[in-house]
């Protein structure tokens, strides 16, 4: 079915590219939104599918179409992040914070609302956010994350832990006057 849809798109069959978009855009939009942020997600999704349109002839069915599109979408987003880092001069945005020990005994987070986690994600620095999104949200192994980002597995693991610790702080329940408890 993947090869058929890809072939129909390449051949310009009526409705094929729209069908491809409807099937795969939600996952790719979620990826783009979490990697580059809400302000640029719309443009990023367009760029992803324009790239898909140009490169669909390269799809040979060695992986599923979904996986192929995911890798392409990830690369497009990462290229954009690198380009943005070059423009802003923020080339090293890894988390270096040393976090305080968890206050008191026991967990400090209750049930985490997905919307709260999405908002907290937006506040992470790009590198840490990227590692977290690729590993925890998208389910990639550290080996694949490291390969995509050009870092070591050890760095990927370290950045993931720091991203989680930062999120823990962000998601900590606030007191009545807005101070973290």
């Amino acid at each position, binding site marked *: 079915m993947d090869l058929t849809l890809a072939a*129909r798109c*390449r*051949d*310009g*069959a*009526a*409705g*094929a*590219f*729209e069908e491809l*978009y409807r099937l795969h*855009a*939600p*996952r790719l*939009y*979620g990826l783009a939104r*979490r990697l580059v942020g809400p302000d640029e*997600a*719309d443009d990023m*999704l*367009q760029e992803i*599918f*324009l790239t898909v*349109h*140009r*490169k*669909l*002839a*390269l799809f040979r069915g060695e992986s599923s179409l979904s996986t*192929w599109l995911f*890798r*392409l979408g990830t*690369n497009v987003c990462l290229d954009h992040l690198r380009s943005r880092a070059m423009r802003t001069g923020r080339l090293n945005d890894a988390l270096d914070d040393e*976090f305080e*020990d*968890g*206050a*008191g*005994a*026991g*967990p*400090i*987070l209750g*049930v*985490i609302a*997905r919307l709260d*986690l999405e908002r907290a994600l937006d506040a992470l620095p790009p590198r840490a956010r990227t590692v*977290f999104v690729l590993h*925890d*949200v998208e*389910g990639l192994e*550290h080996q694949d994350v490291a390969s995509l980002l050009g870092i070591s597995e050890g760095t990927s*693991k370290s950045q*993931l*832990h720091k991203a*989680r*610790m930062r*999120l*823990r702080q962000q*998601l900590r329940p606030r007191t009545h006057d807005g101070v973290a408890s």
Partner: protein
Amino acid sequence: MTRCRELEEHLSLYVDDLLDPAEAAEVRTHLDTCPACAGLVTDLSRIASTARLLGPIAPPAHVYTALTSQLPRTNSDTGGQGPAPGRPHWRWAAVAATLVATAGLAYIVGGRTASTPPAAPAAATTRALDTIASELELAVHHYEQAIREFDTVATAADTELAPDVAASVRRSLRALDTAIAESRQALETDPASEPARISLFEALRRKIDLLQTTALIVNESQGSRPAEPAGPANATGREL
């Protein structure tokens, strides 16, 4: 406290089950005696499990509209190559649209004829039959007009279908034409015959479906033909 700092970076790996057995046992031993680290592990686990629930997000509708405006101009899909010059591509689309509209009319008329009450007063029955007869003739007229147009295009573009497909379509059309002729003959003998009316509409409907499907296949096969030299550039680029 020192032990907590030493083990802290291992806690995410513990949550993800990436520690070797000895390391995992060491962490478990510490967690049994340290409520703070045990609480931290619980929180890290909640964050990871909630992250797994973050699924796809529906993009705003305007994104696709903006996307298609940037794609190379093609046929109605905008994602493929346009029709080669000289082929009556648009006529197949027009025929398909006519067939769909006619099929819709036939469904409406066919539905009404099928629901004719069997025991109506004589005068009302006569008026109903006159109305039904005229509507039936109108629907059949539209069907046959669309079918004639299709035949004209089919004759001009006979090579558009693969030989075995074309032969199969011709066999099916012959069988349907026989059914249509028999139903019309039955209606000439007995204009009030509901089974004959239903049979006629069913045969016409099936012929419309067949012709519509055939037109769509030809549309797609025309779209898959190699573009003329003036068509859009082929996709190239680095392998992923």
